């Protein structure tokens, strides 16, 4: 018979008893330890006490009634950090477009489209993988099947020097704040 020689070993035995993994030998070793260690007797208790305490956790588990609603989580308002990231992505795309425009100064008007689903996989994933839970925060501005297919189309008018003079959103994406972010970036690009 192996007797728990110290309190750390007794803790392991008590854990095994709590989880229903202790055999007779281990239970006996634990009892032997308790007979010589008042500290463990007070702090952990005997086998019956261990089973009572762990039984409360099991009882709580059995009484659990909460039904997680993942759809609700998807519908939450996107966090600013996520919105900012998506906005930055769109803005970067817009700056790229303006850079292209600047190389062709003879063209006073440029119309370009940015497909939102090209900006990342999360929006597409949200709609393709979990169509029943569309509208979740991770999908951000482009949540839902419709939004994932949405396209932001904007027009940039250049002045005589080839600098952006006006930006007009022709076809809105699903979020006005992102539309504005694109145009702001375009206007600041030069």
């Amino acid at each position: 018979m192996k007797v728990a020689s110290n309190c750390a070993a007794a803790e392991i035995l008590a854990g095994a008893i709590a989880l229903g993994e202790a055999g007779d030998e281990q239970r006996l070793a634990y009892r032997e330890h308790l007979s010589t260690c008042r500290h463990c007797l007070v702090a952990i208790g005997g086998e019956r006490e261990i089973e009572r305490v762990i039984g409360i956790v099991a009882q709580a588990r059995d009484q659990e009634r909460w039904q997680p609603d993942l759809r609700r989580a998807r519908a939450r308002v996107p966090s600013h950090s996520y919105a900012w990231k998506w906005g930055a992505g769109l803005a970067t795309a817009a700056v790229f477009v303006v850079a292209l425009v600047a190389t062709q100064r003879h063209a006073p008007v440029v119309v370009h489209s940015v497909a939102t689903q090209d900006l990342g996989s999360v929006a597409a994933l949200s709609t393709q993988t979990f169509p029943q839970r569309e509208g979740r925060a991770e999908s951000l501005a482009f949540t839902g099947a419709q939004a994932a297919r949405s396209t932001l189309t904007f027009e940039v008018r250049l002045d005589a020097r080839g600098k952006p003079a006006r930006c007009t959103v022709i076809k809105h994406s699903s979020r006005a704040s992102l539309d504005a972010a694109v145009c702001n970036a375009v206007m600041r690009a030069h």
Partner: protein
Amino acid sequence: MDRTAIAQRRTEVLVLEHQTKLARYLRRMVGDAEVALDLTQDVFLSAYRTLQADPARELRVGWLYRAATNAAISFMRRRKILHVLPLDRDLDRNAWRVDEHGAESVDLQAALARLPVEQTAALLMTSYAGYSSSEAAQILGTSADAVRQRVCRAMKTLRHVMNEDSNS
């Protein structure tokens, strides 16, 4: 069928089978239902990406719990919280009282809030999620004895809290 379609189908199966238990586990880990929902979805998103990268990979439920535990610990560290958050919603606070109207009424969530996160994970992984100490050890990246010891130490704290409650 391309790898994206395979990943989607396999992720859907995982979601349908495990979302409830996983979300409940996370809720008890972080002590907040809304955060638990977010973390649960992060776990499944991570699973999807893993399967998309390697459609042949065998992704078991233990992987989900490992990812969930890591996500919960990361969340709490990000919030600079070393222990489980106390519940701040009445609905949650009442949702895990054991024997609510009896003499042994115990606010288990409040008791969990007093535990170090490693002990919470060991206790919930075994007595709540139903894993053996060996299985939990694999998921948590430690030994079975360490899991048993953590469970014992968690019980010590729970017992102490319960005694405090009954004396107050």
